[in-house]
């Protein structure tokens, strides 16, 4: 990978990290309504996957969707504003963290229902195939979601109809407060085999690996529609949601997280590829400024008007 490319991916990952760290503080300050699921430790996955996607490609996401959303290139201020429940949010403050969407960027929404992104994205892939423009769809889901029946339905249909969809599993070993191995008698590799589906597993914390694998899987799909699975072994650093004290995790596991930090690994890779310390510091400064500006703008933005609760339930008739 070229240095400029790697630097760009690093930048995107750092943006997600800093954005979530900002949200974490805002949450602690009582500024974020509702549940907040942070993806700290998982940033390489969406950045790597999105590096293979364009705005016309579609993705859908789950409850832990900030990274997926930002990596798809949505407006940062609108993103913050949405999570703060502001009128200027991407969804006018009606969705919040679990429902950020930006259809103009092909981001079909975070989702509060585990597994729900799967059929939605499968349908989006069907649309892409019918439209013959070479676009593809990607769906992010966690290892916990592997237990939902709808996964099975979608693997089957995607394979049967050769749909251009990338199933991206973020396997962080946890489903809320339970280790996923107590919830699953199978794994995605075995399921992929059962459906004769192309499957790759990567260290989801190594950006170059994720990007390379995503590129390899997505490229051919554009001309010869067919599904593929990308399983990313990754790490959930924070609790299931903010406020979760994680007393169910043992100290050893938590201590080991630091060494696998995707941001750190990406910075090391950058340095190894010959990046000057300046470059890395410069990126950090830029990102910080960008986050600060966006967060400030979002904080200053107005709350939605109460009178708007009935807006947008239905599409107004054209005039």
């Amino acid at each position, binding site marked *: 990978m070229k240095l400029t490319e790697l630097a760009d991916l690093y930048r995107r990952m750092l943006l997600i990290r800093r954005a979530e760290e900002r949200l974490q503080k805002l949450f602690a300050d009582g500024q974020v309504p509702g549940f907040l699921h942070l993806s700290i430790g998982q940033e390489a996955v969406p950045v790597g996957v999105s590096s293979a996607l364009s705005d016309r490609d579609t993705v859908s996401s789950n409850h832990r969707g900030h990274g997926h959303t930002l990596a798809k290139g949505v407006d940062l201020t609108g993103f913050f504003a949405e999570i703060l429940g502001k009128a200027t949010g991407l969804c006018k403050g009606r969705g919040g963290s679990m429902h950020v969407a930006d*259809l103009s960027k092909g981001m*079909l*929404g975070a989702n509060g229902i585990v597994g729900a992104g799967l059929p*939605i994205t*499968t349908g*989006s892939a069907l*649309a892409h195939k019918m439209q013959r423009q070479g676009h593809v769809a990607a769906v992010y889901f966690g290892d916990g979601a592997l237990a939902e029946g709808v996964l099975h339905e*979608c693997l089957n*249909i995607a394979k049967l109809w050769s749909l251009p969809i990338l199933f991206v599993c973020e396997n962080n070993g946890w489903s809320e407060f339970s280790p996923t191995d107590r919830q699953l008698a199978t794994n995605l590799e075995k399921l992929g085999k059962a459906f004769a589906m192309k499957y790759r597993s990567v260290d989801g914390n190594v950006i170059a690996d994720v990007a390379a694998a995503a590129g390899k899987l997505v490229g051919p799909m554009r001309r010869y529609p067919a599904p593929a699975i990308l399983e990313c072994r990754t790490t959930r650093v924070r609790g299931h949601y903010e406020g979760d004290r994680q007393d169910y995790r043992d100290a050893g596991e938590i201590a080991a997280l630091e060494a696998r930090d995707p941001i750190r690994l990406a910075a090391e890779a950058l340095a190894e590829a010959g990046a000057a310390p300046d470059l890395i510091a410069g990126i950090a400064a830029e990102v910080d400024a960008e986050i600060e500006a966006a967060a400030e703008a979002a904080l200053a933005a107005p709350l939605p008007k109460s009178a708007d609760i009935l807006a*947008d339930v239905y599409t107004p008739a054209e005039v």
Partner: protein
Amino acid sequence: MTEIRYIKAVNQALWDAMEADPSVFLIGEDIGAAGGSFKATRDLLDRFGPERVYDTPISEAAIAGMAVGAALTGMRPVAEIMFMDFTTLTMDMLVNQAAKARSMFGGQGSVPMVLRTPHGGGLNAGPQHSQCLEAWFAHVPGLKVVCPANPADAYGLLRAAIDDPDPVIVVENKALYAMKGDLPDAPEARERIEIGKGRIVRPGHDATVVAYGAAVTMAEAAAANLAGEGIDVEVIDLRSLQPWDEGLVLESLSRTHNLVVAHEAVEAFGIGAEIAARMADIGFDELDGPITRVGAPFAPSPFGKTLEDAYRPNAERIEAALRRTLA
């Protein structure tokens, strides 16, 4: 004009919509070569090919969910769920996804999908193949629900549903599939029916019966019977259940001052409850007597013939409800 059956009107609406708009496609179980369990999609695979007519595995959640995703990606899917009872497997996709996407995304887009499904009894199909569950969907903000009572409406409401930018549940009635009616020969002359508007099927001034689906014909029969006694009953076909034509019902009530609501679904917590409740509020001053309702009793739809006959609403029960209101 040609006389056609209700099921053929559905088929014609699908055909015409697919001719008119290449983004309309069909998805469902055995809807291709088999033409659907009730033949609503007959010949459409031959005409439009497998890239417009998708025969799916038995995966109802995926059918509904794929419709949502395709609709968000520029298509106009029309999904078929073989029996309304099986929509129980699609509720997350319809209620948490299709219904909410536009609103919870701040009005960014729409979900122009249609889900067609037949409800109702009369086939001795038993408790898991006869249910009328439309009240569930009418309770969900973001969904629209229509229920055609005759072939012309089956055509017109389905065309309107497919044109509609928002998700529409089109509830057809199995027992009406064989019903005959006229449809114009020229495609341009075949009309869409506006979603949200009801229709006065029979004007009258003594009492109003609000009905939909199979209950419309029953209400007409009840009205015809009572006409012999000099009781003049107005019959309204709601056509659309969400939104429903509150104005039309209120206007009728303000002329007749008596109201009966009739449907095939279970009475308790059914569509009729909302109509009645609303009129007991905004129409209270117009009411001369109790609002009575006719629906199925509070039991699963039974299988055996005698039982199903006793279970399903009919003209006699609507007549009795009218008499009680007018008493």
